[in-house]
């Protein structure tokens, strides 16, 4: 089963971190990603630019409305994600708990719909 490990962080808090902290963080993520790759469970993953870089768009009655910023104003924002292929929820939760995001933010684990083989 595929799971998204969503990393939620408090952007305001993150912005206040020292350079040294951020470097250590970056190292931790590299180590984690390598471990995940080595296990063969990793399908993909990305770090996202902060929500200040985001734009939102929706169509209402055919009319397109574009706004700046993220869709929802919450205390924690989506900062990145990993896509993993695990045998069950517990395994996915284990990988989420190991992710540096579990320490400096909150990890949400969401199962991904299996829509069959992808065209390619």
């Amino acid at each position, binding site marked *: 089963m595929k799971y998204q490990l969503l990393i939620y962080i408090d952007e305001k808090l993150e912005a206040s971190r020292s350079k040294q902290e951020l470097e250590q963080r970056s190292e931790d993520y590299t180590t984690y990603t390598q471990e995940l790759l080595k296990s063969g469970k990793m399908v993909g993953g990305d770090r996202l630019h902060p929500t200040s870089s985001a734009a939102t768009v929706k169509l209402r009655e055919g009319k397109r409305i574009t706004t700046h910023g993220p869709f929802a104003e919450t205390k924690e924002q989506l900062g990145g994600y990993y896509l993993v292929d*695990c045998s069950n929820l*517990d395994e996915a939760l284990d990988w989420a708990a190991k992710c540096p995001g579990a320490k400096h933010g909150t990890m949400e684990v969401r*199962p991904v719909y299996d829509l069959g083989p992808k065209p390619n």
Partner: protein
Amino acid sequence: MENSEKTISQTIERIHKSEYGQILASLVNTFGDWDLAEEALQESFLAAVQQWEQQGVPKRPGAWLLVVARRKALDRIRKNKPVTVDPGNLENRSFSSEREIQYEEEEIADERLKLIFTCCHPALPMEHRIALTLRALGGLTTQEIASAFLVPVPTLAQRLVRAKKKIKESGIPFYIPPIHLLPERIESVLAVIYLIFTEGYASTSGDVLIRKELCDEAIRLCRMLEILIRKNLLSPDIPDEELSEVWGLLSLMLLNHSRRNSRIDSSGRIVLLDEQDRTLWNREEIQEGLALLQKALSLGSVGPYLVQAAIGAEHAISSHSSRTDWKKIAEWYELLLKMEDTPVIRLNHAVAVSIAEGPERGLLLLSALGKDLSSYAPYYLAVADVQKRLGSSESAKESYAQALAFTNNEVEKEFIRSKFDETR
């Protein structure tokens, strides 16, 4: 064979209660599909009603039901698409031989433990965990669970559907969790069992104070967990703290439950601990609770359930409330507060202190809790008691009035009214 029971349907009802969970566990394990397992098991019970009437009850009814349910499940898989389980693997197994039945029986205990862990997975909301556990392991019907928790049947049914859907969708595994997850998982199972117990012990609404069946069920589940853990998880694998808390919870429930016959008088009124007829306390349960407590304490680690059991034990060994060692109880509460600092535990601590060290000191501690417990009836009862002991009956009456405003339970309301009336 079943002479004491008048009809086959009574026999089946009893078997339903005792075997449902085990058989369901086995079916879920084989087919990996909760709904299929439940439907097949229903059919199997229907078949039993018809066949046992004519042929008599089989020697091992549980195994008979399992074997028939397996066939029914396979029939359904063959008829329906998409196929989620490869029936090829299963078809090679003969389901009806005696040897097979015996083998299945040994396997079942293990699968029941898996089922407990699945039902109590922390990814499920607590109320879903409770409903699922009672349904799958307690063998209670949806109707019974709904009425025990005072929710409409469709609501409860909906909860069960959602819980099963989540298990499937999010891939909650059906297994005994790996060692590194055991502490968290056992904790979750114990929390579910204790909530079932407390719901039965002091229900928050309705007109029956003790729903004995829920208490019995919680104790039965905890016993089962204890046996299964000891049987399935070799002792070096399982941390002492965990087993200690399993024993602690079982002890705590037995000690509390032992007082059930004295908590309500013949006219249905609440009797407080210090006024209870202690000869009505169930000695057997007290002995068992105390023995479990000793066993758990000897492991050397002390968790919240164990501490609460120790408090229950102080009451259980005391012949009269005036001889109870309230100082020791207050100390246990202090220890408990170091583990879980909640307003309700603070309240209990304050009550113990007010008896051990006097009402002035008690009132001081209680006043500090007013903000957190401003809509909690037991808080006002504790305050009223201390105020009465300090001689201010007018303030006590006010506190009783507030307690009355925050309770929904008819039996409790009656109790508070009588307290109000006798305060002069």
